[in-house]
């Protein structure tokens, strides 16, 4: 096979890799940020344990964002500029949030006991601001990066819901990584944030087709609506199952503690699949397609070669690290 034959598929492949890393980011950093958001609700005595549950992971988790933005920049240079200049302010706010969250983590570990409260607050504020800014960007993106009051209001609503769903997946992570009182608390946190998550997914599902006739067509014309029906139905079933499951948690033998996290992951996956279906082939909604925005195929091929080789290795050693720090979270120590 001639290598050139792969050229027409490159934009799709890279859109796929980018989608994958955004999804991985949302799940993984979602739970880190969620734990940060829940900090505000947590009694002081549990906070060290909460930090310990994400300590060895947050940096690597955040790197998926760098990969996602890297691929956007690398594979779709034109779209990259358009999207990031349109979202200039929320991006900057998110960056400040990420900075605050990341450094608070380290400073907190080295602070005197009487200074910890300061870094606790920075940690909470950084995580929350990051989540809100990301939600805002999602909202603005869904409405086609327009401006005007509806976009702003809608984006704010999505911001709130995304923050809530991060808190939800954070709580699910804590159910898995902790025990006793903190685990019990996490169950109740998850119950409460799950409702907002549901609202968020519902309004995005309604707003997307409403904002774009093209997307409306894609979902609500006749064979499609039947073929696609399993998507919302499965999501609804998962929500229902999770509510039911939480009623029985924490269970005495702690056998099911990973289930809420897996279900949350599945829900995010489905939501993401829906969005991907709606927007394909556009990378800038209804303006620039992935095919128009793609970089030169020769350059993409170079990256693809590296990606195919390195990504499995990255996934491999990430799993290794999760196994090293598997089980319930314990005190973090350097020595």
């Amino acid at each position, binding site marked *: 096979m001639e290598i050139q034959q792969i050229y027409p598929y490159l934009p799709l492949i890279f859109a796929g890799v980018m989608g994958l890393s955004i999804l991985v980011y949302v799940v993984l950093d979602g739970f880190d940020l969620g734990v940060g958001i829940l900090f505000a609700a947590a009694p002081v005595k549990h906070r060290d344990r909460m930090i310990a549950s994400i300590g*060895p*992971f947050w*940096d*690597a988790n*955040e*790197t998926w964002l*760098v*990969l996602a*933005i*890297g*691929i*956007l*920049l*690398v*594979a779709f*240079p*034109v779209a*990259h*500029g*358009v999207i*990031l*200049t349109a979202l*200039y*302010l929320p991006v900057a706010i998110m*960056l*400040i949030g*990420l*900075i*605050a969250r*990341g*450094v608070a*983590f*380290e*400073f907190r*570990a*080295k602070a*005197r006991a009487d200074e910890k409260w300061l870094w606790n607050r920075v940690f909470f504020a950084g995580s929350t601001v990051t989540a809100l800014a990301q939600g805002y960007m999602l909202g603005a993106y869904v409405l086609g990066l327009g401006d005007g009051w509806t976009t702003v209001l809608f984006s704010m609503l999505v911001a709130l819901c995304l923050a809530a769903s991060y808190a939800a997946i954070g709580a699910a992570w804590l159910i898995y990584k902790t025990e006793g009182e903190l685990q019990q608390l996490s169950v109740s946190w998850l119950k409460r944030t799950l409702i907002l998550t549901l609202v968020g997914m519902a309004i995005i599902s309604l707003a997307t087709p409403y904002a774009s006739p093209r997307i409306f067509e894609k979902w609500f014309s006749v064979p499609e609506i039947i073929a696609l029906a399993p998507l919302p139905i499965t999501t609804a079933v998962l929500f229902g199952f999770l509510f039911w499951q939480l009623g029985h948690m924490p269970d005495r033998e702690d056998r099911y503690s990973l289930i809420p996290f897996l279900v949350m992951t599945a829900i995010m996956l489905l939501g993401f699949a829906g969005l991907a279906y709606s927007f394909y082939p556009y990378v800038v909604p209804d303006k620039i397609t992935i095919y128009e925005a793609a*970089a*030169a195929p*020769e*350059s993409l091929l*170079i*990256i693809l070669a*590296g*990606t195919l080789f*390195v990504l499995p290795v*990255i996934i491999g*050693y*990430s799993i290794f*690290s999760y*196994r*090293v*720090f*598997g*089980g319930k979270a*314990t005190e*973090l*120590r*350097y*020595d």
Partner: protein
Amino acid sequence: MDPFILSRMQFGANISFHILFPTITIALGWLLLYFKWRFNRSGDEAWMQAYFFWVKVFALSFALGVVSGITMSFQFGTNWPGFMETVGNIAGPLLAYEVLTAFFLEAVFLGIMLFGFRRVSNRVHTLATFLVAFGTTMSAFWIIVLNSWMHTPVGFEIRNGVVHATDWLAIVFNPSMPYRLTHMLIASGLTVAFLVAGLSALRWLVGDRSAAVKKALRTGVFLGALLIPVQIFVGDLHGLNTLEHQPAKVAAMEGNWETRGNVPLLLFAWPDEEARTNHFELAVPNGASLILKHEAEGVVPGLNDFVAEDGTIEHPPVAPVFWGFRIMVGTGMAMLALSWPGAWFLWRKDELPKLLAIAFVPMAFSGWIATLAGWYVTEIGRQPWLVSGVLTTKDALGPVAGGMVLSTFLMYLLTYAVLLFAYLYVLTRLTLKAAKDGDNRPDPGAAGETALPAPGANAVLQPGE
């Protein structure tokens, strides 16, 4: 306000803040590996104590490097979309390889390196330390390749205004890359050498005579003394390379206006771009000609060669380049003047005279000053180009309004000021606290290949740091 100037100031502020921390982590990673290696070989606890102290500094610096690095990767899109649109076919793959081969490696193994000492075998822990050090060095490699390509672009062709790669080997090993990479890696080594020496000297001065402090102090001073002559030599080669490829930058560095022979080496001067001359010159006759051409009559390019017929100035702003260069070289000389006597005393007398020890303390951050000054020479010296001869900085600017850039710029500045203060405060506090309470001791039996408690069995819960 002018979004162009503001965007440049913002970019300069962001990357200046970012570079402070990689400069420390690149070399500190290797130094930690060295401490660990000495401990593994000798079983001497003091090495592991030094490790545990410096790993905290590493963790903190790493976190700051990571968060400011993430800001960097968004900057290209938010402020300089023209950069990626024009040279994305080259910058893209290089940045992608940095993420794939470096960022994930360091980020994942950092967790094991920091918190895994009791969870994995000593061998795996050493391996994790190595991979983190290796990862940071790979980051430096890829980003310097990209940066050097921006200075000396080769291996490409332009089609419809967009740069396409034709020869990747030439792109990666572009003419200025080997010099810039070597000079930067040694700069990192020097920064860490003086940081370790400076903070250890501080601990020694407040009365800490522990073996760990002594070992760290010796390591820092000897490393500094070893690297600084190499750095001066490499810096000279780097300058010759720049003379070949970017003569306007060298003309600005030397403050030389007319192309001529017998050019003096200016120790001090006040370059005046309006009058196109220097005031208050203090010079070594023929110095610049000798350094750059190795003969007194050697012809050195002058700034006036880089003014177009219509008076448009095509050379970089003179004063910042001129001054940046002197600050860097001056700091280098101070490093030489301090580290050699220091090494001599430690070697012969096994102790520093008090005065010399005091002198090392303010030098703890001298590496930062030289590194920043050097980068300002390099980067401002490339102006008005963003990619030499291919893309001007102005053409890369995005559509964001001035007021918006101003607001984010102020936001960043405020954040950085607070973080820098907190970083220096915590470093000083950690140092003084360790001097007072002593360092953490390693687990007995952790030496050699004896396995530590099996994963999951680490129930030892003691109050954290």
